[in-house]
């Protein structure tokens, strides 16, 4: 059982004017302090909940062994740009990238990206396939319903049918070819360090998406914070997390993929403390004994391999967050055998 850290909010109001240690720059310093502590304590990974490759790069620069996870938004952003950013981060971290992809999106996010809600799932799946293809092929073209790379395609409309895009050779290739230059189509550059590609984690609360991830052989991140626990010792996987996990494992079996190919990770707000609980907002909070029992229940209900501990950080909570990580590392993790 691996323990990682999942950082939701880096806080800070922006600008440097507040002068109370609560500026964005200060909150980044606190995040990077957490990264250093996490590495020191032997945590496996630090995940950023937002698509923020630059901040993740700072985490990588701050550490040497910690794996760096980023949850990108392939349904909302240009997939080629995501593939490039991720490859550069994999190079900067010398192969420590964990590539996460958030499949779900809020109505506000979809509206801001001018995407019809009904297209979200299809766009997500297309974008993911495109990203993997771009990483793993020397030259590539992708022709989907929403993504055409390169842009230039001939759109053929047949009577009574939807527009059908057909690939045409982009004009920029013609002089290359006539001059004998050795290029066919575009090559996404640079390629990631990890070959054939970095590990891919799909984060979702949707069963169909979980099954799709299983068919593609992608790992899965589920949110175990969904159902609030009444008390620490009896925390159980939220109904949705355990039923999603079941759907995922079944689909893997159905398509004949081995469970060892993938990882199932859970995100959960955890606060381990010395018996002086102030973190009422944590889903699982208690002394190490209580936290251990809670995690064991979760693992039983989901078959998870990894727990990504959502850290409740903030400029007045940093000491608490660090203490929790210390207890997780010293008193909980050694007793989590799998």
């Amino acid at each position, binding site marked *: 059982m691996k323990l990682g850290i999942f950082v939701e909010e880096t806080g800070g109001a*922006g600008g440097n004017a507040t002068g109370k240690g609560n500026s*964005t720059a200060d909150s980044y310093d606190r995040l990077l302090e957490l990264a250093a502590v996490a590495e020191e304590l032997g945590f496996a990974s630090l995940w950023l909940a937002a698509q923020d490759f630059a901040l993740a790069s700072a985490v990588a620069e701050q550490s040497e062994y910690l794996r760096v996870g980023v949850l990108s938004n392939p349904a909302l952003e240009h997939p080629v740009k995501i593939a490039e950013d991720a490859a*550069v981060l994999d190079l900067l971290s010398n192969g420590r990238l964990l590539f996460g992809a958030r499949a779900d999106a809020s109505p506000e996010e979809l509206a801001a990206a001018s995407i019809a809600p009904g297209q979200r799932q299809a766009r997500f799946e297309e974008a993911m396939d495109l990203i993997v293809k771009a990483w793993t092929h020397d030259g590539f073209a992708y022709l989907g319903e929403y993504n055409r790379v*390169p842009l230039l395609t001939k759109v053929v409309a047949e009577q009574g049918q939807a527009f059908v895009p057909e690939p045409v050779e982009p004009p920029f290739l013609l002089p*290359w070819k*006539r001059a004998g230059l050795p*290029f066919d189509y575009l090559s996404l550059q640079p390629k990631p360090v990890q070959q054939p590609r970095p590990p891919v984690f799909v984060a979702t609360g949707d069963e169909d998406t979980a099954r799709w991830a299983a068919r593609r052989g992608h790992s899965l991140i589920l949110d175990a914070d969904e159902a609030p626990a009444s008390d620490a010792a009896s925390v159980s996987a939220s109904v949705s997390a355990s039923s999603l996990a079941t759907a995922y494992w079944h689909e893997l079996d159905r398509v004949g993929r081995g469970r060892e190919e993938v990882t199932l990770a859970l995100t959960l707000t955890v606060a381990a403390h010395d018996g002086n609980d102030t973190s009422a907002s944590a889903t699982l909070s208690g002394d190490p004994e209580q936290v251990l029992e809670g995690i064991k229940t979760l693992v039983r209900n989901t078959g998870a391999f990894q727990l990504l501990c959502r850290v409740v950080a903030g400029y007045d909570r940093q000491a608490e967050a660090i203490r929790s990580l210390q207890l997780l590392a010293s008193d909980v993790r050694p007793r989590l055998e799998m």
Partner: protein
Amino acid sequence: MKFWLGLYGMQSPRSYPRSLAWTYSEVVDHAVEAERLGFDGFGITEHHFWYDGYCPSLFPVLAAIARRTDRIQLLTGALLLLLRDPLRTAHEIAVVDNLSRGRLTLAMGYGYRPEEYEGLGLEMKARGARFSEAVKVLRLALAGSPFSFAGKYYNYENATLSPAAFNSPACPPMWLAGGSQEATARRAGRLGLAYWAPGPALPLETVAHLIECYREAWKEAGHPAEQASFGVATDVALAETEEEAEAIVNQDVLPVYAEQLAGFGFIKDEQGLPVREFPEGHPVFKALRSSFCVGTPAQVIEAIERYRALGCDVFMPRMVEANFRSDRILGEMKLFAESVMPHFRGQESNGGTAG
């Protein structure tokens, strides 16, 4: 005059193949060394879909450099602004600006390679007009207050950037990195941006003319005259002796240029086909050579003085084309900092080296 070292592309060209992971660890080390040597800034450069691994993504690299340095200005040289949504770019800018506590400077260009546009799903039409709009969006967004923008190409309603720029409501300094077009120089002046005249293969008279266009447009737009500023980036091959400097050009710089020019398809023959071979003595090298600053410290000082005479505020020596040889680049950096920069520092009223 300030000295900003550049421009690293994290490439592995055929004339000097190497591990790309190494190039990314090297660029951070070189930035640290540049800061130690007293350079004022450090710049990296972007291209997409290029065979030698050319870096397509500047902000993660600058974020890593920001963590290892304290004083040096970090330069995007150039950020291809039109290849992305400006509001999303503003977010990346704000993250690196905060990570570096306000040390980010944005040099931004249009981009000129059709495959980069097509590969990112964009048409190349109306680049100038789109650029002007995108700059306005960046300025509104980075200030940190809620904003709306209704343009011909970009539209936002009640958007707020979080986090804002480190010094918000002030934005990071912005430059327009322009080609050899007068219209681009004028646009920089109109928009109130600093102007970066790229050096390679551009004769000094052309640079002087572009600066003139820039200043004219700046004045016409009513910006305060003393705030207009321009920079030049050009290749430097520096050594203790002239022979050594010539050797750097011949052994290191020109082979890389030949390969890059062939690959980028810049140079066309009479039939309009890209030239693949650049034998010694090819006319393209003449223009290139005359734009380089080559030689001993005294000779390089003399070459840079020509740009200072035009009023150049920032000079960007590019040593990284020296066939990507780390040892040679580090040696040239040190010699430049110790033997060339003091000449110019001495002539400044405060003699300062502030970034």
